[in-house]
């Protein structure tokens, strides 16, 4: 599937590149029905023919990131009039920039991108915008407004804040909490951590103590080892706040292996199916906070509307909004059935 897409993108860009060499970049045998589309001017709208959307996201080696790409693909298929060129599999920013350049050579109507690092991908996004290709930025925000037409993002600080409130309520403002963080030093981790401690401080002052706080890089085996060590050091733990559902699986195993699952509860973040199943069952895994990969599906819809020159029906404005933040819903046993279909 992905090989086919990449090969398609490559052959298309090659064909266009050859055409450009011939001095006529508006005609191409492969581009077919795109010939009538305007090639510049961001306000240009396209009312007929399929909408050609280029999509780029970092390597799908993590449950959440895999869901991002999959949701974008599914949504494009569902919409019918969208032609998606998805490229994935890169793990560093320079490679992603190259990949986006290749996609842009195919002259898409819009670019939907989840930048590996916003700062490193900003130049290529600006280039797309300058060429009249609207950029829809997912999850990680470009700092320059001019680098994107629309942004859709989750609420990392909100995850931490909601988790903090949840812990304050559950623990009645007294107890020992362990925090298992994601990758140290990236905004996602810092915001999920800051929101958590802010909410705890605000509600409980110093009633709830964060007795240990260690990164485990969003992977289950590191979560396991880190938690095993923390269990050695901390003989009295009331709850564990983890930054990610995949990683939390390892933390859960560590607690179960030590036979201490009755002593504490645990929460995740993201909203994986596995996490939701465990929340439903009850026990150690008590809640997760949505950071929903459905946002990539929404981004495809936004891109289509922007290209078509439409707005959202329920908003009075005739255009797609510039920024959309998906709320970090708290998922517990009570509401898990309502959100389960969003699980990944």
């Amino acid at each position, binding site marked *: 599937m992905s090989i086919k897409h990449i090969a398609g993108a490559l052959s298309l860009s090659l064909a266009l590149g050859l055409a450009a060499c011939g001095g006529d970049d508006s005609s191409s045998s492969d581009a077919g029905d795109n010939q009538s589309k305007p090639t510049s001017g961001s306000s240009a709208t396209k009312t007929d023919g399929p909408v050609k959307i280029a999509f780029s996201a970092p390597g*799908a*080696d*993590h*449950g959440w990131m*895999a869901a991002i790409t999959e949701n974008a693909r599914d949504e494009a298929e569902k919409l019918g009039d969208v032609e998606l060129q998805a490229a994935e599999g890169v793990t560093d920013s320079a490679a992603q920039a190259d990949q986006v350049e290749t996609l842009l050579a195919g002259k898409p109507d819009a670019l939907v991108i989840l930048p590996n690092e916003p700062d490193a991908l900003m130049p290529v996004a600006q280039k797309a915008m300058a060429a009249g290709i609207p950029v829809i930025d997912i999850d990680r925000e470009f700092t320059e407004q001019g680098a994107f037409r629309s942004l859709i993002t989750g609420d990392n600080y909100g995850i931490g804040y909601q988790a903090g409130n949840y812990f304050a309520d559950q623990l009645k403002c007294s107890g020992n909490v362990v925090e298992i963080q994601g990758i*140290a*030093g990236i905004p996602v981790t810092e915001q999920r951590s800051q929101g958590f401690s802010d909410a705890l401080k605000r509600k409980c002052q110093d009633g709830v103590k964060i*007795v*240990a*706080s*260690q*990164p485990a*890089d969003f*992977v*289950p*085996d*590191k979560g*396991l*080892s*880190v938690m*095993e*060590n*923390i269990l*050695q*050091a901390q*003989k009295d733990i009331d709850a564990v706040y983890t930054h990610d559902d*995949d990683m939390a*699986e*390892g933390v859960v*195993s560590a607690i*179960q*292996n030590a036979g201490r699952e009755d002593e504490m509860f645990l929460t995740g973040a993201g909203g994986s199916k*596995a996490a939701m199943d465990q929340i439903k069952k009850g026990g150690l895994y008590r809640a997760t906070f949505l950071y929903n990969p459905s946002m990539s599906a929404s981004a495809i819809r936004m891109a289509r509307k922007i290209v078509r020159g439409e707005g959202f029906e329920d908003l009075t404005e005739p255009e797609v909004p510039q920024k959309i933040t998906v709320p970090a819903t708290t998922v517990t046993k009570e509401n898990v059935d309502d959100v389960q279909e969003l699980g990944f």
Partner: protein
Amino acid sequence: MSTTDAASGEGRSLPLPKPKGRIQLQEYALVGVVALILIVGAILEPDSFLTSDNMLNVLRQASVVGVLAIGMTFVIATGGIDLSVGSMVACAAVAGGQLAESGSMAFVLGALAMGLVLGGINASAIAFGRVVPFIATLAMFTMARGLALWLSDKTPVSLFSLDGVRWFGNGEVIGIPSAAIVFLAITAFAWVLLNRTRYGRYVVATGGNREAARIAGVKVPWIVFSVYVITGICAAIAAILVSGRLASASPIIGNLYELDAIAAVVIGGSALQGGRATIVGTFLGVITFALIFNLLTLMDLAVEIQQITKGLIILAAVLVQRKER
């Protein structure tokens, strides 16, 4: 030592480098480092560090990278490197996970088969395809990870009901974690293999002076072939141990294990250019890293301080060894 020995042994019977002199000193130096960490830890974290429970925990944690490092010692002894062990761990775990419905034995066999196949591909490419180890295993590094993600459809398989596999993660024999027993048994076996058999001497000779080894009658390509098969099997064993602890077979585990394994081998005193290898040193190197990780987490130090501290300890451990020479 072995380089010159091997060269002068040309034409006669095969040079037989034995663990003596410098290597033993290095091993003792690392014993000192381990002892120092134990003492410092006992002072800084008196309640939790030097307890039998925590020491067994350290041994269990060390077992996964430990098994990989033992295999890596053989590769490094020949002057090679294997960058793919972490990815192979994930791939072997997933391969076993595909058979999880048929029970624990099927899981174990599936993982071992995958380790054998992947190791065999590395081995063939390097020994007979003449691809340099760095490149061949770098290719496997990405292929095995991709295969793991593909086979698993990017989702972990729960092994919660497979008591047999979970025993490797949680089980105990007379109070000692089963994973640690596997690690210790493999270490002992590897020590005998490297130090007391003709095969072990051939491995070291291949790394010391390939040409001399060839002239002395060693079938060098087959020796090279064998060591990459060994790391493949070790990756599968490590996959069984870590999956047992996690109670799941996940395609995203094993990240950067290769670096941990290589680092343990090197601070243990084996030479990266080959020709000199020590299993005891590798064992102590693994224990050193596990103790550092354990102690720094117990102290709940900020991650940046942990990283700096870990780097300083590695540097100090190697410098101490140099002084002893």
